[in-house]
């Protein structure tokens, strides 16, 4: 996996209504039983889709969507990276919601999937719009902190460091953490429980 800059994500959107949509719903635990992330995209929201015939992820109108629209506390629950991995492998390239769980957002960042927030009113408006006209194109720009629909930009929020990481293609942290490895060794040598007290 090589790092690349992420700024604009253009495409249609999928409205996923509901607060506190947890990772067990995004990808049920039985699909974690694998030693790669391959194929997870096929099982996104599998149980919810079985229970709801009109689930947006089953709706033919949204099959090309690149942006997911979510409400409050999306991705709560477990730390499984399988949740953002499954969304990304299904074809989602950005998440826009009222708020996200902290671990989900961090995991999404680590795999190059931006999570941006917008006001509940704006999310509600975008959801209505997309439900009425699923093919509506959205253009989400991290550099401009906006999502543009019908030529009208709507403000979105992304934390500074997250935005920088995407814009500079440094969202994969390994290189950054290994930059100054001597300092890591230095900390290890001063921590009492490693020195043996």
């Amino acid at each position, binding site marked *: 996996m090589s790092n690349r800059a992420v700024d604009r994500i253009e495409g249609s959107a999928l409205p996923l209504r509901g607060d506190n949509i947890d990772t067990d719903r995004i990808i049920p635990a039985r699909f974690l039983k694998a030693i790669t992330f391959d194929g997870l995209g096929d099982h996104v929201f599998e149980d919810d889709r079985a229970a709801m015939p009109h689930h947006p992820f089953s709706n033919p109108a949204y099959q090309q969507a690149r942006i997911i629209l979510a409400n409050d506390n999306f991705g709560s629950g477990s730390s499984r990276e399988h949740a953002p991995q499954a969304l990304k492998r299904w074809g989602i390239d950005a998440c826009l919601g009222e708020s996200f769980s902290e671990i989900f957002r*961090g995991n999404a960042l680590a795999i190059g999937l931006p999570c941006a927030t917008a006001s509940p009113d704006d999310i509600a408006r975008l959801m209505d719009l997309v439900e009425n006209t699923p093919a509506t194109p959205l253009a989400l720009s991290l550099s401009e902190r906006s999502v543009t629909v019908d030529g009208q930009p709507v403000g979105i929020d992304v934390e500074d460091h997250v935005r920088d990481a995407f814009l500079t293609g440094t969202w994969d942290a*390994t290189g950054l*953490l290994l930059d100054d490895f001597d300092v890591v060794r230095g900390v290890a040598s001063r921590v009492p429980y490693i020195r043996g007290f």
Partner: protein
Amino acid sequence: MGKTLLQKVWDLHTVRPLSTGQTQLFIGLHLIHEVTTPQAFDMLRARGIGVAFPDRTFGTTDHIIPTLDQVRPFQDTLAEAMLSALERNCAEYDIPLWNLDSDRQGIVHVIGPELGLTQPGMTIACGDSHTSTHGALGAVAFGIGTSQVRDVLASQSLAFDPLKVRRIAVNGTLDNGVFAKDVILEIIHRLGVQGGVGHAYEYGGTAVDQMSIDERLTICNMSIEGGARVGYVNPDQTTFDYLRGRPFAPQGDAFDRAVSWWRSIASDADAEYDDVVDIAATEIEPRVTWGINPEQSVGVSQRIPGPGAAGSNGAVAEALEFMGLSGGMPIKGTKVDVAFVGSCTNSRLSDLREAARIAKGQRVASHVKALVVPGSQAVLAAAEREGLDQVFRDAGFEWRGAGCSMCLAMNPDRLEGNQMCASSSNRNFKGRQGSPTGRTLLMSPAMVAAAALAGEVADVRDIVQRRE
């Protein structure tokens, strides 16, 4: 101005502030298991990077292991592939692994404290959100994703956003029949599943001071259900007494030196908190969840809220519909089909003792399937030495091998159809216990035992107080 434990540990472990506003922190202890690590090792191999500190990572297996038939290869080929991958990766990178044949194997959050790996003042990471559990001993412990597991293996460090600290003080004495589980369910109910976002929760107050480490582990375990990635209790004499003599705890003179450092790492009396919440222990009763997230709970004497109750986007109505429960009905008397005592929240020896105390000499209701799954092989052996296995078996519970089991049902233990399960675990999400339509009622292990006997949600205080 004094500092909190979080600030002290953070400062000590800081590698460097990053231009991103985050801080690179050294990770003192890394715990791994079979579910969230195979992809991390593959990424390392693909990049040609080694493991920086193999002696600071320890592995065990817990999530996928069967609790009945543990003969290898497992019948479940996917489970077998996961455990084989962990074995291969640990062998290749010289990482110690406590496998099924080891008396140290168990749920990662049970064995860390049990072996004395978990210590005050440490930074701990594990690819599992309930890593917050380890905070019970005064560590700062983070649940992480698979890419971060890769980063810890590669660099023994991680980048974190700054955290605020909320002190939650529980003062007073808990009623007989009210447990640590009820305290944390009450906290999550009051502050909400998002209440802790951006915060570490520091638990204190006289009720927490009086708790054993096992009870503190239960509280810290569910910090994440309250939205807080980190939860901790300041180390005190109870902590030091717990650690003394454990295999990985410092020995001899080093232990005494450790204790004085551990004391110094606790929050100062004049530490400043971003927020303080006070809870009266006497107001807490045994709690039961009625919905599909852990904040949706009521006291056992209360009624299930109606669909019109506070909650956005029809959250209450959705939960009631999924659970097949009626708003306005008492939670007590809700029929259960399955009873599960286990999980990293409540599968330690003291939990099994409390459940056994209720079950002793009684019978599980005929329509209920009840199982007890100890958190580790050490817990299992200790419980058997006390004869708890016999108490459970006599009462009609199944006594199983150690692991995560029906907490998330990645092994053969699972709900079927829309069974209703009284469970001592930590999550009541839709489908969590293995059946997409299966339903979970979270409660303390003693309450699970009481529900198993009655065949419905019961008030454990009635049993405890009747016997006195």
